[in-house]
């Protein structure tokens, strides 16, 4: 039983134990409660069929796996991943997007090992969303050193998720507005929410895995320290970007021009998020912005690429979040005719939500404006890991951790 000695398996057992300890104390036992076990079953099935019959057709199988979640989304079996709160439509297929992308990556690279099953189906990863396409044991580093290095990431993650992202959800009522001002305000707030939610959870997972002896890639690297869209995507959801690069960009680049390759990458990413008109539009929009940024940078128009980045991120997020096509068209017409409700709406927003918004804007501004300073240069949240800032984060956590403002959910884990 070689796999018992492997760190990934121990981590899997520990994660399942924590999950069930939590579930048993929270609610009654249902199919929803055991949803995290289905990925393990499907992972076994995938490995079995791959090793037994499909090893020769690894590329076809990899693409089939990657787009399996697009098929389930097309037939309404799973939800699209638009960042809104939704319970899993189908507990049996819980986490499909993540473990299928994980296996697609390794099958394509012919690097699949049986022990990967414990990473692919790890509940902590599936609930939070990062794809741990690479991992290595670091148990040779003493636990004290690991805690000392990884704990600050945990603190940053929990403050991002709990104190900044979650209280922003009361602002989501703005999604119904079609007035240009409200549409843009919603776009900005929703971008902040997705960043602090997903980045926060990714940092928590990164630190837990690190403390327990498994190093996985950092999923976010201060994306707002960027000066153009290319740089932005280098820091945003890096695990998915890497999978897309291996599965789509590199093969497409061998046959087609860079522009075509980029369109293929972004449209594949769109399909992975769900089969919906807004995602096609989102993919095409970002592909266009990316290509345009490349052209601007080639001509050394750095300032123009910066001016393109800011609206591209906001408009991209507006498209991403709106699955109602008619309303999306209204929003993208940037009309000033519809009534402005923002002042009335803001009257009902809790004070903590405004405080979280301020904190979010402050952090993003620091990321952006101080990007060349010592603690920001590495783009690994070093600034927040300095002792005095860690104390501030801890104070924020202790004071606000129990706040009931907002809806708590993992933005990338509701399939």
């Amino acid at each position, binding site marked *: 039983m070689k796999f018992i000695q492997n760190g990934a398996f121990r981590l899997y057992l520990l994660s399942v134990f924590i999950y069930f*300890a*939590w579930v048993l*104390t*929270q*609610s*009654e036992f249902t199919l929803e409660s055991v949803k995290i076990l289905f990925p393990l079953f499907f992972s076994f099935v995938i490995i079995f069929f791959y090793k037994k019959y499909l090893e020769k057709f690894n590329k076809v199988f990899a693409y089939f796996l990657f787009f399996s979640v697009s098929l389930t989304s097309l037939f309404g079996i799973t939800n699209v991943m638009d960042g809104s709160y939704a319970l899993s439509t189908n507990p049996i297929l819980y986490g499909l997007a993540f473990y299928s992308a994980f296996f697609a990556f390794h099958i394509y690279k012919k690097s699949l090992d049986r022990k990967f099953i414990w990473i692919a189906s790890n509940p902590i990863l599936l609930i939070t969303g990062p794809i741990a396409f690479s991992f290595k044991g670091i148990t040779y580093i003493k636990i004290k050193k690991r805690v000392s290095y990884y704990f600050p990431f945990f603190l940053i993650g929990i403050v991002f998720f*709990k104190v900044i992202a979650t209280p922003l959800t009361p602002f989501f009522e703005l999604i119904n507005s079609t007035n240009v001002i409200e549409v843009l305000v919603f776009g900005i707030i929703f971008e902040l929410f997705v960043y602090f939610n997903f980045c926060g959870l990714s940092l928590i997972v990164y630190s837990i895995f690190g403390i327990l002896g498994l190093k996985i890639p950092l999923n976010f690297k201060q994306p707002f320290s960027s000066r153009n869209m290319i740089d932005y995507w280098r820091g945003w959801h890096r695990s998915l970007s890497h999978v897309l690069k291996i599965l789509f960009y590199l093969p497409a680049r061998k046959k087609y021009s860079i522009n075509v390759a980029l369109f293929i990458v972004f449209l594949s990413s769109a399909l992975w998020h769900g089969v919906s008109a807004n995602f096609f539009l989102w993919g095409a929009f970002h592909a266009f912005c990316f290509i345009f940024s490349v052209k601007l940078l080639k001509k050394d128009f750095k300032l123009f690429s910066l001016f393109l980045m800011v609206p591209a991120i906001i408009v991209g997020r507006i498209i991403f979040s709106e699955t109602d096509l008619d309303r999306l068209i209204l929003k993208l017409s940037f009309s000033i005719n519809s009534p402005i*409700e923002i002042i*009335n709406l803001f*009257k*009902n927003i809790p004070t*903590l939500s405004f405080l979280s918004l301020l904190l979010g804007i402050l952090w993003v501004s620091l990321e952006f404006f101080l990007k060349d300073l010592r603690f920001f240069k590495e783009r690994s949240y070093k600034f927040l890991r300095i*002792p*005095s800032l*860690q*104390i501030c984060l*801890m*104070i924020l*956590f*202790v*004071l*606000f*951790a*129990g*706040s*009931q403002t907002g809806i708590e959910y993992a933005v990338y884990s509701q399939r």
Partner: protein
Amino acid sequence: MKIYKNIILLLLFTIYIIYLFIEEPIPDEDDPYNFSEYQLLQIDRHKQGIRSISQRGAKLSGIILGGSNAMAGLSARMMSDNKHNEIFYNYSLAGSKKKINIYLDSLRETSLLVDKEAVKVVIFSDLMFFQDNKSVNFERLEQPKFRLKIFPSTSLLKFLRYKFIPVDPLFPRDIEFGDLDWTGSYSDVCRPPESFNMTPNNILDIKQRHLMIRNSIKEIFPNSKIYFMVPSISNNSSDLLLKYSNDIKILYKESNLLLILNPPRTEKDIFCYSGFYLNQKGRSLVTDEIIEIISPEFN
């Protein structure tokens, strides 16, 4: 610096763990057994208001009960002004619909401050005639036996504020009659109304609730006539609601429960941000109608 950082972090973490164990949840609107801090403050203000009636040597003749719809939609001052020798008081309490038992207990306690025999009319405006489409039946949700707590149920900052800083009422009320003060913060949150989108509640459950309430009020104010009022709602001519209104009328007549039920309102400018909260104009209009209905009790 590192050692100090670790000590401070450890200290803060210890505070957090201790707080996890000692914290008591702050009662909110969904807690049927405890008033929230705002409600406690309002009850206290009501007691002051009612005490001052006796201190003036006057007698309380009528009382308005209910939740936020009664607070926004009925005026005890108008009723008192109309019936020159009679005093009405608006004892409504926002967010009280799920706290009926403790609400009636507070009324029982407050009633000791006045001549209970003198109260002739009680109007109970109850939004429980309807249910929110989005509402969850909390009573049917089983509470877990024990909870694995990682986060407290209330933030430490809120808890400290609750313990040490007194609150102001959410919506200021007229101390003399208990009415909502329209010059206060309520008018700030009043925005264009939405359509009424609540659905009928279980009529038999509501009747049982009102029989219980009637018995309790009869014990408190033995000479009173108790009217149950269906809150005024904006125009909604759905067959379901029309049938529901008819069913209520029939059932309440059979059960000898006095009912105030007006058809959905056609006026467009009398509601405030929902299809059932009246604005100042709506309050005057509906209160006038109520005065007509209760007038025989004072002749």
